[in-house]
């Protein structure tokens, strides 16, 4: 019986199979030799360069990573792992969000009761809600930091312009998540923050009224609003985010990992675009999608032997001369990058868990349309806007400024044509960006910490009115 299986295992070996194959010893190894196992995992786990490459190619999850990455990507300073942390937070939010969905009814009569029940009557209910809330806060923060980091590294420049635009889209979706999720507990905090937010939409020229109506679904915030926000929060926005995220991550690979480009910009850029700063292995990987299985096998083999791989079929003739790489500066994503990512993911989970244990998510009195609490503050990431609103006309402060900033950011790569990424060559861009950033931070800090009832100035050492 076992012999037979081993024999049939022998038969399905093909050109992709590495020469070294572990002997079937012990139950576990014999299981791994069965046809059923091999139908799930095509290639045995082999700790050879070729084995690792094959595993990467043939596994949909590992395939998210390139088989090999430039060594510089491993350094924490390269990206501070902010994009990855945001992705981890998104998955934490998906998992905790699904748990919460089991207990939550999107109805104005039931929602608040469900929140109380979650807090007192359901094992770990409060913890799950806290973790959801803190992850959401952190996600907004991390996404913004990611944007700031990418800006200062100049990584939005050609050929990564469009991925930057998608990134801005992801930021907008993240804020949409926060805003829609904010209403769901149906307490005083959520009711009035969302009242202020939706009335803001009213000031949009021409379409303001229609947009507000669509969002609220009635004359004032009520059952239709709650239901709409719920549908947006648990279905529409997650799908949008997943879609954007897919393209975003895919393009990180296909546009190549960002390199610091100084005065020698032009040449480096040319080489970058053609063969890319993608490693040879990544280029190999690109062919993996072709119909011919023999090609990746061949390239994988060549790679394993330490040869450089050049795909004449997809590369311009000129670039062949441009792409002269003397030393292989790449390392395998597994284990080098993936292990680092696992550590960062565990750290992220530990952080939100600790926050969830230490600080409870707020739950005020049930929403009361007849009583505006003092002060009625938006969540911290919108509080800068609220501060701005107390000084200027709502059309300016609520619509033109935020929309202007968001649009300028989105199209930044298209009018900032300067190819340099080093700060000494980008004084204008950096000073403008830094100024906007500082203004935003100052407004947020004033709004969040220094404003009390009636939006009067109250220093935080007298009384803290921070709303999270």
């Amino acid at each position: 019986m076992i012999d037979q299986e081993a024999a049939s295992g022998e038969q399905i070996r093909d050109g992709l199979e590495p020469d070294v194959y572990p002997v079937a010893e012990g139950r576990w190894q014999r299981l791994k030799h069965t046809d059923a196992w091999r139908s799930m995992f095509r290639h045995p786990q082999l700790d050879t360069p070729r084995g690792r490459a094959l595993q990467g190619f043939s596994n949909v999850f590992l395939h998210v990573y390139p088989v090999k990455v430039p060594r510089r990507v491993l350094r924490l300073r390269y990206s501070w792992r902010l994009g990855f942390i945001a992705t981890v937070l998104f998955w934490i939010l998906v998992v905790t969000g699904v748990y919460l969905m089991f207990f939550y009814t999107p109805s104005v009569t039931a929602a608040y009761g469900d929140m109380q029940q979650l807090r007192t009557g359901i094992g770990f209910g409060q913890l799950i809600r806290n973790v959801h809330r803190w992850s959401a806060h952190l996600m907004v923060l991390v996404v913004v930091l990611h944007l700031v980091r990418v800006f200062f590294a100049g990584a939005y420049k050609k050929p990564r312009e469009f991925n930057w635009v998608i990134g801005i889209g992801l930021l907008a979706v993240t804020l949409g998540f926060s805003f829609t999720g904010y209403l769901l507990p149906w307490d005083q905090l959520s009711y009035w923050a969302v009242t202020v937010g939706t009335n803001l939409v009213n000031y949009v020229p021409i379409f303001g009224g229609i947009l507000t109506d669509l969002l609220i679904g009635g004359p004032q915030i009520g059952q239709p609003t709650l239901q709409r926000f719920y549908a947006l929060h648990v279905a529409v926005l997650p799908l949008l985010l997943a879609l954007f995220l897919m393209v975003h991550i895919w393009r990180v690979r296909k546009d190549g990992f960002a390199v610091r480009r100084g005065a020698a910009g032009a040449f480096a850029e040319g080489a970058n675009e053609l063969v890319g700063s993608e490693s040879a292995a990544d280029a190999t990987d690109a062919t993996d999608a072709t119909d011919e299985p023999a090609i990746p096998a061949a390239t994988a083999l060549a790679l394993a032997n330490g040869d450089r791989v050049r795909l004449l079929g997809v590369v311009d003739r000129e670039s062949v001369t441009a792409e002269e790489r003397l030393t292989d500066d790449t390392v395998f994503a597994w284990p080098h990058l993936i292990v680092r990512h696992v550590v960062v993911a565990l750290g992220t989970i530990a952080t939100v868990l600790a926050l969830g244990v230490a600080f409870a998510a707020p739950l005020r009195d049930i929403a009361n349309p007849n009583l505006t609490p003092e002060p009625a503050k938006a969540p911290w990431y919108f509080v800068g806007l609220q501060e701005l609103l107390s000084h200027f006309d709502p059309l300016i402060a609520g619509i033109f400024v935020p929309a202007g900033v968001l649009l300028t950011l989105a199209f930044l790569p298209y009018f900032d044509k300067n190819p340099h990424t080093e700060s000494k060559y980008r004084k204008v861009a950096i000073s403008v960006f830094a100024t906007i950033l500082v203004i935003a931070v100052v407004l947020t800090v004033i709004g969040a910490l220094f404003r009390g009832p009636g939006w009067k100035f109250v220093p935080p050492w007298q009384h803290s009115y921070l709303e999270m």
Partner: protein
Amino acid sequence: MGITRRYVLRTGWKIGGGMLALLAGWTSWELLRPLTASGATGKIKLGSPANFTAGTATFVNQGRLWVANADGHLFALSQKCPHLGCRVPFCESSGQFECPCHGSVFNIAGEWITGPSPRGMDQHPLTVENDELVVDTSKKINGADHGSNKFPTDSKGPACAGKG
């Protein structure tokens, strides 16, 4: 030249796609457009005008509005702040309306005094029918512009907002 098969097919796809998009838009709009309000709108009887004495503001829950008496002139003021929609409470000590959200202040006639609100408080028409005060909540009159105040704007005492 002339019309080729390829041209017809391409144009056909474009028109077909456009129609499909229109249909999708129409369906979504019909599904998602807000249902017109029912119930709360309409006329509300408020009893004798003499119930509302000068210098007071009375909240009428049914219509979500204030009936304010400014020197003998009655106003039905919407509770919704023209700025961003917070509910505006009446402060007894200052005799003014003070919005807690961004600090807009209105006098007892609903006229703008200070803060980010673009105009005075919105009003509903008030009439007297058979000695009874009636407010029509289905109609809304936008509040007066800045600087067109007819009533005094000074407070009669300390403000409520800011005391916590």
